[in-house]
């Protein structure tokens, strides 16, 4: 295999009768990559497999040049990995500082002074410096999410895998998160799953769309928007021919699908391309928007 940070070939995972991942192949280099897909697409399964939290049934994975099936190489991956799970759990009696400190200890940071400096750094990076002494059970959902993100960032991992990191964040926090991840992505590899096409448009040089366990798109955000080129138009009233349409802030309708002759074609956004891509694979666009 090559010098890619992550390489996945023909990855397959089954849960009883359902297929979570079906022959997924892709590779990642330095930078931020977004993983888009509706609920049940297999995003979390893929991220867990890459984070060494799940053993796939078939296929090959190389993370940071290591094979996670080998116990020694798996530990090496874990030394260089930061992982934010979809539903991070906490020891509720710990404070934010204590919890991040706990994860830092698990990451083999045993020197107290250096570890505490690192904990303060990552809590500051996620904007939680003032709340570091609060018990986790007293924190809001968004704050808990940021505590987990801080724990993932501890130790400056080379590869950061984030499963829906913006869930529960308010717009200001989301903006701050984007700045933080953009900075990290300058020199390291970040893979994040999200339902938010705005996050992908703002952050990612590359986007992978997963649906029903299959990679439906792998390219840059401009390429995903281009899927909807010539298939987005505006109208004064809802267009019955549109696969989906919604009223915009300007009062006109934004329609996607097959435009009628003479329609006022507009430039597509990333979301338009994503919705049409899912619809092209047999899903109603509206369901994709709900996801």
């Amino acid at each position, binding site marked *: 295999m090559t010098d890619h940070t992550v390489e996945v070939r023909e990855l397959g*995972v*089954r*849960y009883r009768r*359902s*297929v*979570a*991942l079906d022959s997924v192949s892709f590779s990642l280099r330095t930078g931020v990559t977004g993983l888009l897909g509706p*609920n*049940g*697409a*297999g995003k*979390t*399964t893929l991220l*867990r497999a890459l*984070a*060494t*939290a*799940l*053993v796939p*049934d078939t296929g090959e994975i190389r993370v940071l040049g290591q094979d*996670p099936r080998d*116990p020694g190489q*798996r*530990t*090496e991956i*874990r*030394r260089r*990995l930061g*992982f934010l*799970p*979809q539903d*991070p*759990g*906490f*020891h*509720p*009696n*710990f*404070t934010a*500082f*204590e*919890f991040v*400190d*706990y*994860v830092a*200890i*698990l*990451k*083999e940071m*045993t020197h*107290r002074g250096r*570890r*505490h400096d690192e904990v*303060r750094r990552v809590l500051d990076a996620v904007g939680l410096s003032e709340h*570091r*002494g609060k018990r986790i059970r007293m924190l809001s959902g968004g704050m808990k999410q940021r505590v*987990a993100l801080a*724990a*993932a960032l501890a130790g400056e991992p080379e590869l950061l895998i984030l499963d829906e990191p913006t869930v529960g964040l308010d717009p200001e926090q989301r903006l701050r998160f984007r700045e933080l991840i953009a900075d990290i992505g300058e020199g390291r590899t970040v893979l994040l799953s999200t339902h938010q096409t705005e996050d992908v448009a703002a952050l990612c040089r590359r986007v992978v769309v997963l649906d029903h*366990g299959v990679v439906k798109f792998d390219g840059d955000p401009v390429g995903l928007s281009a899927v909807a080129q010539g298939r987005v138009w505006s109208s004064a009233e809802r267009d019955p021919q549109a696969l989906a349409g919604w009223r915009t802030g300007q009062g006109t309708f934004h329609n996607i699908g097959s435009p009628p002759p003479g329609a006022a074609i507009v430039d597509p956004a990333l979301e338009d391309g994503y919705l049409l891509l899912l619809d092209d694979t047999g899903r109603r666009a509206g369901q994709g928007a709900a996801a």
Partner: protein
Amino acid sequence: MTQRTLPQESPDPHTPDALLRGYARGETPAHALRAVESHLDHCPLCRSRLSGHTDPRILDHGWERLDVAIDAPVPGTGERLLVRFGVPDHVARLIAATPALRASWVGAAALTLLLAALIARLAEPAGTPLLFLGLAPLLPVAGVAVSYGRRWDPAHEMGLVTPMRALRLVLLRTAVVLATCIALTGAASLAVPGLGLATFGWLLPGCALTAVSLALAARMDSTTAAGATAAGWLAVLIATHDSHAVFSATGQTASAAVLAVASVAVLLSRTAFDRPAYRQGTAR
């Protein structure tokens, strides 16, 4: 002998510049230090002159360290106690995260032991407290089972993907749970008159069962492993109830043998605790 020049010997009542510069660099001779500091305490002018000799970066660093020291979170009582007994602070924090150390579990375990001791005493005022001895070994088995794994450790997944050897964490928590059970047994033996040292007859079987449960947990869910171990133990107790054989010298020797074999089995399967969960949950 070198003549010593103390600040108060100067005709000027203030600290000379050379001495202030030396003080700012931390080079004041020991014999002059007290006099300089005593003067600085009372003299705003010299304090102001001192700041002119001090590298602002050193001052900022000092303030920063002071801020950090003041803001440093205070660990919980248990952690502080462990550190006082010489446990390294990072180990104390790992121990503090043990789910079985929550007040609810420790309280339930204490109550169970106390009731078992009371019932045993009432049922057999002078004999071996069999009910107590039969029940007590299951407490560490249960305590250890709820101390790690996906089902019981809320931060399991974040911990799983770190380089810390899972078996190290499991054994650390096992030791803590066993120590807690020993302390609770001691308290129960003191609370119920007439039990005495006989209550510690559970210790070797308890360690053996815990090791068996861990050896099984390398191959199955920790709760299932604990359940299977408990079932086996109850079967042994029922089979040997009348002879008290389990807690006799022969029985204790057998427990020691089981403990040795199970410990070797745990060590041989140490990498199993690091393995990622297989086909957990549902597709998301």
